[in-house]
């Protein structure tokens, strides 16, 4: 269930952004910007088979690149066989893949993507604009298509010549290329549903076999994106992170993808195992309802809550130290993240004074609703409740079953924990969860100052003005939003010592294995 929900974090990237970034064109190359790490640098060695473990349930296996992939194992396999138009990057959060470059019209409604030169399917046929158009339309026509390609109607996707795809948005959307990072997998035009399991992709690896969630992939020598060093990748699906970590420790796999803090702690003492931390992987904010009638409607109360939390203790205990302290601003992995805003620290005296000024009723017990969707979430609520008691605030943690939580508490509760897996864009959160008209406004926040800063940020043609507006936006968010973001969990992969150049981006950046080589 947790995987299912988390998966959505990137799938449902529905932004109603209207803005300006007049033309954002990518470089010609491929994933040079998708920086990677791991071990000593050196000249990559060709050859070898990488055995990867990824989490998944046999009951949720999905082969369709445009389906709802609840299994990380399925998504990993798809992402190696098929290419998306763009992929997450390090210096810029959106970098080229099958689309070598893109540009928009001045009104930010029409976007043109140019297909990478030399891109061919695994069966040798060249990728045409028609293939991309067909694939995007297919994606758009899936049940969650409206969320995956927000503001785009299927009829407004068309080919221009052999190598250009034109997408017209219903509204100005500066962030549209960002939306194509995770699900815009391209298949050959008119691929039948029954043929999808064996459909040729364009990615760095070709499917050798797939069975029961496990697969073997072999190198695509004709890949347009650069040199692939590995001969093959074998993916094994694991039901639990524990079994996956055991497999790594026993030498049965070379890489345990997204193994988590618990596995990392067990492996930390082993010299032959690399523990790779990908920062800014998961946000677990506490949401305080800001609308009238909520005990947190007064911004002084929210400020007090943010002063009550002991962030270092949270990171240490909830995340076993595998994370970083955050400053109540979401989108911590954004290159434009406001590092200059001073870090908020614990200040019980100030918190008590603010609560007194706001006439906050300390005799009452407040319910903090949480779920066990992801590891550590319920613990974070419990620990926060204990810390709040030191300021005289009585909080009772209520654990809710996942389904009930999403249906009844999410977006309407006064006080609950949430979590997000896409954390490399400040504007993503602003547009999706904080601007007053946002569809997933978790805290029911409506702040005129914030809305104004947001609109300025997305409609500034001048990058300097945009940066300034983004700074204002983040300051307001830091000061008075409905979020308490105490820290960010690292994504954690475990790998054998011989594995080099592993992905280091957060979230689904972990599937970028095309640069990996074995020492």
């Amino acid at each position, binding site marked *: *269930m947790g995987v*299912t*929900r988390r*998966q*959505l*974090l990137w*799938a*449902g990237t*529905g932004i109603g952004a209207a803005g300006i970034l007049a033309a954002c064109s990518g470089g010609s190359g491929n994933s040079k910007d998708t920086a990677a790490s791991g071990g000593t640098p050196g000249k990559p060695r060709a050859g070898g088979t990488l*055995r990867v473990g990824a989490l998944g*349930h*046999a*009951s*949720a*296996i*999905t082969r369709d690149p445009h389906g*709802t992939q*609840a299994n990380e194992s399925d998504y990993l396999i798809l992402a190696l066989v098929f290419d998306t138009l763009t992929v997450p990057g390090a210096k810029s959060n959106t970098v080229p893949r099958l689309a070598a470059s893109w540009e928009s019209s001045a009104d930010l409604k029409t976007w043109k993507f140019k297909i990478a030169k030399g891109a061919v399917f695994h069966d040798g046929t060249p990728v045409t604009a028609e293939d991309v158009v067909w694939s995007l339309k297919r994606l758009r026509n899936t*049940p*969650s298509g409206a*969320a995956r390609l927000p503001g785009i109607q299927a009829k407004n996707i068309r080919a221009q010549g052999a190598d250009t795809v034109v997408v017209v948005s219903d509204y100005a959307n500066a962030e549209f290329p960002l939306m194509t990072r995770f699900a815009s997998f391209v298949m050959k035009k008119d691929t039948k549903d029954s043929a999808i399991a064996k459909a040729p992709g364009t990615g760095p690896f070709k499917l*050798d*076999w797939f*069975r*029961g969630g*496990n697969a*073997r992939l072999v190198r695509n020598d004709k890949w347009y994106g650069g040199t692939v060093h590995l001969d093959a990748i074998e993916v*094994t699906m*694991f*039901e*639990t992170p*524990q*079994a*996956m970590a*055991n*497999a790594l*420790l*026993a*030498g*049965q*796999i070379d890489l345990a993808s997204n193994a988590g803090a618990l596995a990392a702690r067990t492996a930390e003492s082993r010299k032959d195992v690399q523990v790779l931390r990908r920062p800014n992987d998961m946000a677990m904010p506490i949401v305080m309802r800001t609308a009238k009638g909520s005990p947190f409607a007064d911004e002084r109360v929210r400020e007090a809550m943010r002063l009550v939390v002991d962030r270092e203790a949270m990171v240490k205990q909830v995340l076993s130290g595998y994370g970083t302290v955050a400053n109540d601003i979401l989108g911590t992995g954004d290159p434009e993240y406001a590092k200059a805003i001073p870090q908020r620290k614990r200040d019980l005296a100030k918190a008590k004074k603010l609560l007194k000024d706001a006439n906050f009723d300390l005799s009452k017990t407040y319910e903090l609703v949480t779920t066990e969707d992801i590891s550590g979430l319920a613990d974070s609520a419990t620990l926060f409740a204990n810390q709040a008691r030191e300021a005289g605030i009585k909080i009772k943690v209520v654990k809710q*079953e*996942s*389904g*009930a939580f*999403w*249906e009844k508490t999410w977006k309407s509760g006064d006080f609950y924990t949430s979590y997000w897996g896409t954390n490399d864009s400040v504007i993503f959160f602003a547009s999706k969860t904080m601007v007053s008209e946002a*569809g*997933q406004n978790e805290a029911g926040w409506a702040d005129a100052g914030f809305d104004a800063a947001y609109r300025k940020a997305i409609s500034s043609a001048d990058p300097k003005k945009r940066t300034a507006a983004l700074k204002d936006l983040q300051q307001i968010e830091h000061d008075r939003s409905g979020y308490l973001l105490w820290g960010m969990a690292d994504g954690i992969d475990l790998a054998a010592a011989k594995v080099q150049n592993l992905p280091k981006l957060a979230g689904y950046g972990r599937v970028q294995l095309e640069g990996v080589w074995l020492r």
Partner: protein
Amino acid sequence: MSQTAKTGPVAAPGTGAATDPRRAAHIAVRIAGTAGRRILMLIVLLAMVFAAVEILPGDAAGASAERGESAADLAARRHLLGLDRPLWARFAHWMTALPTGDLGTSARGQKVTELLADPLPNTLVLAMTAFAITVVLSLLLGCWAAARPGRPTDRIISHTSTAAFAVPEFVVSAALLLVLSLWTGWLPAVTVTGGDGKPASWTMLIMPVLALVIPQAGWNTRVVRGALADQASTPHVEAAHLDGLPLHHVLLRHQLPGAVPAIATGMATSTGLLFGGAVVVETLFNYPGIGSVLAGAVAARDTPLIAGVVICAGAVVSLVLLAADLIRYAVLGARA
């Protein structure tokens, strides 16, 4: 084990139970009746599965929904999955398709029969291997202990088997993992599956089988020992002893045959426990069986898939129980 007591004192077995045609017909009717009861039990069990999933909070539509999906989308998905129909209608629909071998469609739109095509044989291999070893091991240990009643061997076997049964599968599994794999490196820690859908090496079966065998062998050793003890006090066994026949001769020829019905019933009930244990063991060792399918299916409130696993496992368990009944009838005749 109430069966142990029920069999009671028994005359020398094999007294031509099925030689008389009238008795044979009578037994056939009894067996048909038993089979009918087992089928009825399965249907009741499936109805309970449908009801139980209904009682669990949340449903398949919500479990497979995407964050931010609107209430209308959710309602549409509910309709698509047939969740807006009453429980009895869904159950009846699933049950009427069952005789044609159709186990329905999972919440993610896959055929349940396809989802179980690889895992079911894998689980059968695991459970049946464990069952065979359990039978042999508990018969050996039980007879060994019974041959030396009250002596140290008997006491050691009795206490060890009790302890083995008291330890849950996941504790056994964790201990096996630590000792046989992570510390010594003798055995693979988990099962990795090849392109044929089967474990890449047979050595990957050893630990999962052991994890299932240890508690079950403990239990069945107690059953065998108990059933043999009951037989020891019967007149014909005492007579055999008084005739001065060798101990092992009395044990194997006189005590054991009479104990077979109780032992068979005890072993047969183990199959259910083996399947239950397989759910835990498969997850711990990443064994690609129906146990891991079931775990995911319950989390996703995927009723057709859960029911599919239950009917497959239930059918196997019922067959084994029926075989145990046959053995009872064959040995005890109409008095069973």
